[in-house]
């Protein structure tokens, strides 16, 4: 279609002219509170809020680009944010939220006409508001059921990050976006995701730099770098959404068992020790896995840097046992009384004690039983005699 010159000229001058003056032309109608479209939806626009918003300098037609003048089409086209926000829009289309709604942007950024900068506390995507914003879907039990989400919102809100952010208003505390990203949120099964198993140390490390470096100095981090994806990452011990302070008794109580998921034999033999017995009663000062092996920079005993390398044992045990000596540290914290080859003295002691218990209780079991039977009959006879007057 060929445009008449006049029409081109009108468009070229009239539209910028409209923007230059203000949006009053549009607001003449849309500024009325009770304005509705044919379907009965409000098409009211708060001009003041729009003016105060980050898009306040833009004309209405900047976003509603298909409207060229009045009267405008009955059904104007959906606003396409990607016209300006191309990178963000591309990220969203690649993310798990790609097909969530007609205009995904507004799901997080709120009302289209009053979008404020992300660092404005009024913004739904201001750091302190993010959990609530994400929670409007991810904390909704119906949504959780429909899409099979875990109830991450409640978990997060009770976590150390959730407390710090929502109770203390700490901007440095991790919000949803700190770990999951913003526009390009990918499923944790996607190897490019920030929450993909092998990417987690880097994700957490973006804040927890010290632990991250320690982790990669340790055997787990080294193995992860070497391509062993079975090694634990931050979330295997700390969880993802329910992260609590590591000083919490209940958390410490359960953590050794986490190591035991892989290190089964070491965990089983640990359970036989005084350290584990005491710990099971809720006494966290007793040695747990990490008290000897450290938590992030765990190294095998063969590494001279390791806390459990022979040369470092006196210092390691000495953290709790004042006066620990080379002789003292020959204690075996993972001794196995069923393993004769490695622990002959312990094996023989266990065997001796078992035999002692078995023989004494067998003997006295028989002794007691026979005694009971015999005296029972005796006393019944004596009773019968007494009754009959003998």
């Amino acid at each position: 279609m060929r445009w008449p010159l006049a029409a081109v000229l009108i468009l070229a001058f009239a539209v910028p002219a409209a923007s230059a003056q203000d949006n009053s032309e549009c607001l003449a109608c849309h500024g009325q509170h009770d304005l509705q479209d044919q379907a009965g939806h409000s098409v009211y626009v708060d001009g003041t809020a729009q003016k105060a918003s980050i898009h306040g300098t833009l004309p209405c037609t900047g976003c509603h680009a298909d409207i060229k003048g009045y009267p405008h089409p009955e059904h104007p086209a959906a606003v396409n944010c990607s016209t300006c926000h191309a990178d963000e829009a591309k990220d969203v289309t690649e993310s798990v939220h790609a097909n969530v709604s007609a205009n995904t942007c507004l799901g997080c950024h709120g009302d289209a006409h009053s979008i404020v900068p992300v660092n404005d506390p009024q913004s739904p995507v201001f750091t302190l508001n993010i959990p609530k914003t994400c929670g409007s879907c991810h904390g909704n039990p119906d949504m959780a059921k429909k899409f099979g989400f875990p109830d991450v919102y409640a978990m997060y809100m009770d976590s150390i990050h959730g407390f710090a952010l929502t109770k203390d208003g700490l901007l440095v505390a991790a919000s949803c976006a700190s770990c999951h990203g913003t526009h390009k949120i990918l499923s944790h099964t996607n190897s490019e995701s920030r929450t993909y198993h092998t990417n987690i140390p880097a994700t957490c490390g973006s804040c927890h730099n010290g632990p991250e470096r320690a982790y990669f100095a340790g055997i787990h981090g080294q193995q992860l770098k070497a391509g062993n994806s079975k090694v634990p990452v931050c979330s295997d011990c700390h969880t993802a959404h329910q992260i609590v302070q590591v000083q919490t008794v209940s958390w410490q109580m359960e953590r050794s068992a986490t190591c035991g998921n892989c290190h089964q034999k070491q965990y089983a033999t640990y359970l036989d020790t005084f350290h584990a017995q005491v710990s099971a009663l809720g006494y966290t000062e007793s040695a747990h896995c990490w008290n000897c092996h450290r938590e992030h920079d765990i190294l095998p005993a063969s590494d001279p840097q390791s806390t459990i390398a022979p040369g470092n044992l006196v210092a390691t045990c000495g953290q709790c046992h004042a006066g620990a000596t080379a002789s003292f540290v020959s204690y075996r914290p993972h001794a196995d009384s069923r393993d004769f080859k490695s622990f002959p003295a312990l094996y023989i002691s266990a065997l001796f004690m078992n035999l002692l218990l078995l023989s004494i209780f067998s003997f006295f079991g028989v002794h007691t039983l026979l005694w009971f039977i015999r005296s029972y009959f005796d006393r019944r006879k004596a009773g019968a005699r007494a009754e009959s007057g003998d």
Partner: protein
Amino acid sequence: MNENNTSNRYYTRFSLGQRYLHGVIMSTFVGLAFTGMVLRFSHTTWAPAVAHAVGGFAAILFFHKFCAVLLTVAFLTHVGYVVVYRGIIKRDKSVFWGPNSMIPQLKDLKDLFGQFRWFLWLGPRPKFDRFAYWEKFDYWGVFWGMAVIGFSGYSMWFAPFFARFFPGSWLNIALLIHGEEALLAAWFIFAVHFFNTHLRPGSFPMDLVIFTGRQTEKELKEKHPEEYQRLLEKGQLQAAQTNAPPEWLTILGRLIGVVVISSGFVLLVLTLVAFFRRQ
């Protein structure tokens, strides 16, 4: 002589000192057993609950050590009194040999076989003297227990000190035998000792002699006929006679007995269940 007479005449079996000694050993043993079993079976649901009720692990360990020291003192006092004072200073040979000695004699072996013959209706009941063979077994059991549990316990308490004389790997063995021997001791006391002395027909529900120190002539004749005969023949029966126990003492004895026997039974059941569940 009618029955009324034999029930009214009392003879001393245990001195006040012996009764106190038993009292200390009994209460510290129950204290040690409870606090220790909570640790031994800390994986159960009841153990942390008990620990929590007492005031946590620190309190458990404090009570355990407190009872251990008391028991050690009582034990050493007894050994010192019997061996050093009566045996060596007073030169009282009856401590080491004869019917009043706790040393096992040939008669104990004969009584043991006689008792089994009686169990099987193959012979008359043996005539026990002052201490029957199972009473001596109970007595020496404490010595064995003190040696094993005491030594291993103190090694763990003062681990770095003991490591000067033993390798640290001894601590592995110490915890193992401490726990196993404690199970042996606790189950033995709460099952075998309780039955032999209190719960068996003839003594049921409990024998108060350790609390009152006195037994009736009927009990003396029935339980220790050889001793009765010996005292009678030597004319020492009169000297052993004493007054009836005061009522408060009998009531107190019953009270202590009920508390200790029932708490021992509770611990017996808890530990047995926990032990066989885990095996």
